[in-house]
């Protein structure tokens, strides 16, 4: 499928995982892709992989902490490719030193909370703010935010991360309401446990546990998320806006006791 021909996409957080898979996918469907990341060397490695398969792209530095960096990245992308049709807000601060301190509320350091919200929520908001004039002028655009299953159900760890993603969910609905009539759609994808280098580092010891609670036979792959992103980015998604779309192996679609009682289903077989 070549649903992205003539379209330009900017992707934040593209040095690996979902962002890199989405870059490969959107470029593979004919789009021009701007790979933004605070780790510009990592983004450049993704860019080389995309070019190796015939895709058109370039990497640039983006620091979501700084509005000037955000403005510069978007202006630069628009100058190079002449337009911006798709914004994938996929970057989040997932560094181990932050995630490991985002735990029990009674010990929450306000600086950790602030830094998580500064990157994940404020950074995403500013990306949207600065891309909107381009999309409104074009009368068309698709904004896709990477959310998380953690924003839909409670967990024991990472409350700041989850709350910042919940902020992104609501922001998604507001942007859809405010700019839908101008031709701008805004949706979020909410991944389940997607196996990447980052999740291996942060969750590696728990993989079997998580798999038991997914309804599918396997955990997620970055390509699963990229496929939904490609639909939303393209005209195939033109009637979809304001949605938080779980691509999560159904982890949020059942009661928590299901894995404990799965054998029980056999008792009903006749």
């Amino acid at each position, binding site marked *: 499928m070549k649903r992205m021909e003539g379209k330009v996409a900017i992707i934040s957080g593209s040095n690996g995982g979902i962002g890199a898979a989405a870059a490969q996918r959107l470029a593979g469907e004919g789009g021009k892709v701007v790979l933004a990341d605070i780790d510009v060397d990592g983004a450049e490695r993704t860019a080389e992989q995309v070019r190796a398969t015939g895709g058109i792209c370039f990497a640039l530095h983006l620091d979501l902490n700084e509005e000037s960096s955000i403005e510069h990245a978007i202006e630069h992308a628009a100058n190079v490719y002449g337009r911006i049709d798709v914004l994938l807000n996929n970057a989040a601060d997932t560094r181990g030193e932050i995630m490991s301190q985002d735990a029990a509320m009674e010990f929450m350091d306000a600086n950790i909370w602030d830094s998580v919200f500064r990157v994940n929520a404020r950074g995403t908001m500013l990306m949207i703010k600065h891309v909107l004039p381009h999309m409104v002028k074009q009368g068309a655009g698709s904004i896709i935010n990477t959310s998380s299953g953690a924003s839909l159900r409670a967990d024991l760890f990472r409350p700041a991360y989850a709350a910042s993603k919940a902020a992104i969910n609501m922001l998604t*609905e507001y942007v*859809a*309401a*405010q700019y*839908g*009539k101008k*031709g701008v*759609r805004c949706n979020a994808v909410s991944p*389940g446990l997607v196996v990447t280098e980052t999740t291996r580092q942060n969750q590696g010891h728990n993989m079997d546990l998580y798999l038991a609670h*997914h*309804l*599918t*036979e*396997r955990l*997620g*792959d970055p*390509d*699963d*998320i990229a*496929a*939904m992103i490609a*639909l939303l980015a393209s005209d*195939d*998604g*033109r*009637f*979809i*806006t*304001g*949605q938080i*779309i*779980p*691509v*999560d*192996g*159904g982890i*949020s*679609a*059942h*009661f928590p006791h*299901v894995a404990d009682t*799965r054998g029980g*289903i056999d008792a009903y077989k006749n």
Partner: protein
Amino acid sequence: MGRLTDRTAIVTGAGVGIGAATARRLASEGAQVVLADIDLAGADKVAADIREQGGDAIALPFDLADEASIKKLIDDTLAHYGKVEVLFNNAADTRPAVLENDGPAMDLPIEIWDRTFLCNARGTFLAIKYALPALIASGRGAIINTSSGAALLGDVARTAYASAKAAVNTLTLYVATQYGKQGITCNVVSPGMVPTENSRANQPEMIKAVVRHHLTPELGYSEDIAAMVALLASDEGRFVTGQILRIDGGVTKAFAHVADNREQFEAHCSANRGTI
């Protein structure tokens, strides 16, 4: 190679609208499509069209109100194609004689409620029940059910239709939970207003009244729903299950007063554009 090459898909209610558009889309991505409809002539016409464009499709008669007919649809599909990987439960009893009498609760004849649940909820359940063995055997079965935004928010009429669709939504969660580990995904597509060609052309006032509450500039087309069904039916949807995917122009996502306040919002934007 399409995403659905070598897959067999059953599409119920395939004679018109979303069912017909989806049958065309699945076939265009390589699927062998069984078009099931109570209106066999309608399904036949779409199937012939698909074949003319190089696709592989047959039409089969099917009555959602009749358990034997539903079982026969699955059996005939297996007899013809030998397997089935995709079941798109899209049929519903939407005849004007039913919908026009599906009013507010106090004025809703029980015959309308029963008929609606017989077709839309019971029929959908039975199609899933009889298709599941073959879907499980395929190792990559995908069930997609057409629901409606009416199942998510209240409205002044179509009480039975909406309640039956809510039953389909919950059935979806249960099937996803019960058979996921056997390779089954089960999801719902929940369309917003997708007007027929006829009402698009002849009821501009109705369209205008409805579109203002959608967040998109336009109402939906059957092809918009078909695009998501194609993803869910293919390997690209293998990690999506138990979901209600709203392809509805955001009509169920913003507060009801948004359309009334839009002018005020636009004025605020204009004023600020002047000052910034």
